[in-house]
């Protein structure tokens, strides 16, 4: 990673100072130059005044995982100079805001150090404090444009799109940008050896975050009830749903809403609302993160045991407890798969990127209604809150929601007796009726022991009949849920098989390519649903060396594979990364190589 269209930049600044728009501008400009780009925001759990970073990776080859090394660090925050300087790869470049001095002790011989007094320039150019702070960001963006050879025209267009309606702002932004650009030019190093050159590799792509994509999935799936309690990093999912609804779901005549979003008093209530709405026949969902999942456990068991559909988006963050709310992890897997006391097992979907967030969100609603059970979409902070480059979403207008077995008045007419929990079809799924129907369709939901007729029971056999049916039902979901995705090295199984999940996919596939380049053949299988599809077993069986790559301390995916498929735990090497940052390919490569002898060229 250190050439044209193949490098990474990391910008270190202070949160609450408005750097997000400058970073977005840079991302967008590179993207519009047709060059694949990705960005990772590494921000603190507070509102203002603490260190924050943004990493931009440019990869003509299309790799969008978090970069394994940083070519250029932009150090705008004196408080993190030490950290920032240390991060530059040997031979790389440090650009710092020379308004404040760089401690001589931090100087490194193996990197190029550049200084531009962004702060001072802005103080000279602008009057108001707020402007000085905000425009410093555009100023460094201008400098990067020069250093990285971004097309000024593209940047100007972007600025115009954003500020076109506010000429004063547009002018100021333009000034700041140009100021940075010129200052960089004066350094005499532009463009840097690693820089951007126009390509045509983003034509069909968009830049979007997973929370927005999940929201769009819920919108298109026809979800009408959303209930939630604010929590990072899940919050923006419901915010996006709201803004989509405001655009697409307002009755044009009455201005009334074709949706209901309830900001509940807590996560327990959010779960209760979603379950009540699901029971009543709405497609309903909630979005939360780990602490919310813990609080919802009792309700999840209720929905499982009473066959009520509901969709839960878990945008995972770093646990346990409050943990690191602005760091990513995949550590709720066990909590989700077996959520609630007693015997339970749940359908969990694992999107790998925003595009899949959209698709799996839609499928989650279908699966929830078809299997009449809670379905979890396990996203994470990295997918949910960072902008990813993915193929644009498309929609098939022939899609119709799979409402599963719902008896309406007419269907009810045709049957003698309605038994809510009778497994008439042998698939473990019993037909339901919706409240409002009445008559012989009426039944009583109870989280207490019930028989197949929904009657109260304490009888062992009648109880077992129902829980056995539930087990069959969920087992059946393994086939209906999205199958794993194989990235094969060749037609025959490679020696090494990497199994991974969710947002690790990008880094794992990149690692496979890197290993390939070093002469190691690697296949990658990405699991997309729990319970596991039969293909997962086949993949394991056909690979001598199997590694499971995931972002948690306790190898939770591997544990699930051991329990559910019966694969001996130690048949699978655990490759774990759980510091809270998105995975890099290098971590995987190093871990695979460290397996040592076992891995042949």
């Amino acid at each position: 990673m250190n050439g044209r269209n193949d490098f990474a930049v990391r910008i270190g600044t202070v949160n609450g100072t408005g750097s997000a728009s400058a970073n977005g501008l840079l991302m967008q400009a590179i993207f519009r130059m047709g060059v694949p780009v990705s960005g990772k925001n590494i921000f603190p759990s507070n509102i203002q005044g603490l260190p924050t970073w943004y990493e931009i990776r440019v990869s003509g080859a299309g790799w969008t995982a978090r970069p394994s090394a940083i070519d250029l660090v932009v150090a705008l925050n004196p408080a993190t100079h030490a950290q920032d300087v240390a991060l530059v790869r040997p031979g790389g470049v440090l650009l710092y805001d020379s308004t404040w001095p760089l401690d001589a002790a931090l100087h490194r011989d193996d990197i190029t150090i550049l200084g531009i007094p962004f702060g001072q320039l802005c103080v000279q150019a602008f009057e108001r404090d707020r402007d000085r702070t905000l425009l410093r960001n555009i100023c460094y963006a201008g400098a990067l444009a020069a250093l990285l050879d971004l097309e000024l025209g593209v940047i100007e267009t972007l600025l115009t799109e954003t500020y076109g309606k506010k000429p004063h702002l547009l002018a100021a932004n333009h000034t700041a940008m140009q100021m940075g650009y010129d200052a960089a030019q004066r350094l005499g190093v532009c463009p840097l050896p690693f820089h951007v050159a126009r390509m045509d590799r983003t034509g069909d792509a968009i830049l979007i975050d997973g929370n927005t994509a999940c929201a769009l999935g819920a919108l298109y799936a026809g979800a009408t009830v959303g209930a939630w309690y604010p929590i990072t990093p899940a919050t923006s999912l419901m915010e996006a749903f709201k803004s989509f609804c405001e655009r697409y779901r307002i009755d044009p005549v009455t201005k009334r809403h074709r949706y209901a979003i309830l900001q509940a008093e807590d996560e327990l209530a959010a779960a209760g609302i979603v379950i009540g709405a699901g029971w009543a026949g709405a497609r309903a969902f909630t979005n939360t993160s780990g602490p919310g999942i813990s609080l919802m456990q009792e309700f999840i068991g209720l929905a499982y045991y009473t066959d009520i559909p509901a969709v839960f988006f878990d945008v995972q963050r770093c646990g346990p407890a409050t943990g690191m709310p602005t760091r990513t992890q995949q550590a709720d897997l066990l909590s989700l798969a077996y959520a609630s006391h007693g015997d339970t097992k749940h359908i969990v979907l694992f999107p790998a990127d925003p595009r899949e967030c959209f698709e799996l969100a839609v499928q989650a609603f279908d699966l929830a209604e078809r299997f009449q059970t809670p379905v979890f979409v396990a996203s994470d902070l990295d997918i949910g809150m960072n902008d990813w480059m993915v193929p644009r979403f498309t929609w098939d207008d022939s899609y119709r929601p799979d409402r599963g077995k719902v008896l309406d008045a007419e269907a009810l007419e045709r049957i003698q007796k309605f038994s809510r929990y009778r497994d008439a079809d042998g698939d473990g799924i019993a037909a339901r009726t919706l409240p409002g129907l009445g008559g012989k369709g009426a039944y009583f939901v109870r989280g207490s022991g019930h028989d197949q007729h929904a009657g109260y029971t304490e009888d062992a056999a009648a109880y077992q009949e129902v829980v056995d049916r539930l087990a069959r039902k969920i087992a059946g979901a393994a086939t209906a849920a999205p199958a794993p995705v194989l990235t094969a090295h060749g037609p025959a199984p490679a020696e090494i098989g990497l199994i991974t999940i969710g947002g690790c996919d990008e880094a794992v596939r990149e690692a496979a390519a890197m290993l390939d380049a070093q002469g190691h053949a690697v296949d990658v299988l990405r699991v997309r649903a729990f319970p596991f599809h039969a293909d997962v077993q086949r993949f394991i069986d056909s690979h001598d060396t199997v590694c499971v790559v995931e972002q948690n301390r306790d190898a939770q995916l591997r544990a699930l594979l051991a329990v559910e498929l019966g694969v001996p735990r130690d048949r699978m090497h655990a490759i774990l990364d759980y510091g809270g940052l998105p995975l890099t390919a290098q971590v995987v490569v190093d871990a695979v190589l460290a397996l040592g002898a076992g891995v042949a060229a």
Partner: protein
Amino acid sequence: MTSIAKPPVRHPSARLNGLGLALRDYEGAMSTLCAGCGHDSVTAALVQACWELDLPPHRAAKMSGIGCSSKTTAYFLKQSHGFNSVHGRMPSVTSGAAAANRGLICIGISGDGDSLSIGLGQLSHAIRRNVDMLYVLENNGVYGLTKGQFSASADLGSRSKRGEANEQAPIDPVLLALALGATFVARSFSGDKQQLVPILKAGLAHKGLALIDVISPCVSFNDHEGSTKSYAFTRAHEVEAVHADFIPLRHAITVGEGSEPVQVVQLHDGSSVRLRPTADDYDPTDRDSAYAHVRGCQARGEIATGLLFVDETGKDMHDFLHTVETPLIDLPYEQLCPGAAAMDDLMSRYR
């Protein structure tokens, strides 16, 4: 316990209501509560109220948490869907059902443990959200189903069966609801069907959350000498503030009979309640005077009952949500999905 269905015999001479249904059609499964339990009287009052109101059973949704009281939902309206959820969380489940289908008539039944301990937050927020529902709190001062521990509504000095006196002050759901801005607040007594039935009817017709605190003695664990939630104690200390008569839409409204001062509150469906204060200068449409009245009774060791406060002008949850008139579950998918063209259009925002 097994639910025991009652034999579906209908007495030929049974009186029928406007929907052609007999009282028995509003009953449910056989109660498995203790003989004499106050909750069974509430059930009977509910049956009566729904029958008198011509409530279409299929439109009702019976919601409850966990407890002896919460089992009530199984014992009336057998032709309605019911949902016995988890302990203390009935309000949120009801909020969800009501949000999804505003055509449902939600009848929530809870207990003092269910609503004032584990469920206090949910009750409070359902009040704030003003979910359109009847909320019957069957209050016996104890956790019946777990065998008689004091609940948060146990009065100061009330004695348990073992003789221990409760030392912590009670949470009064009526004061709480008034302080939280509830739009319909009443208290009654399971032993006083005369008073309870019209209040239930008014509560059912009320737009928004109608909270009815019903003192409902637990004969197994809290009906002894020394208990302040016993039949005897409640009978002796009950003071009715306002007597409510419920006048359905189809009846003519006759204001003021004789010399008694009567106040008529029009409910959102056109029906009305006639409130006849038994105390002088009691104004059941004034939140603060209701609060003061309840406090005054407390100070005198009395239990304020009656329809204590009603405000028919408040916004309910669907007003806050600005939802369309059609229940959300009845909206055709075409009205929900923006479609492929919109998607293509939208995608340009992400480039």
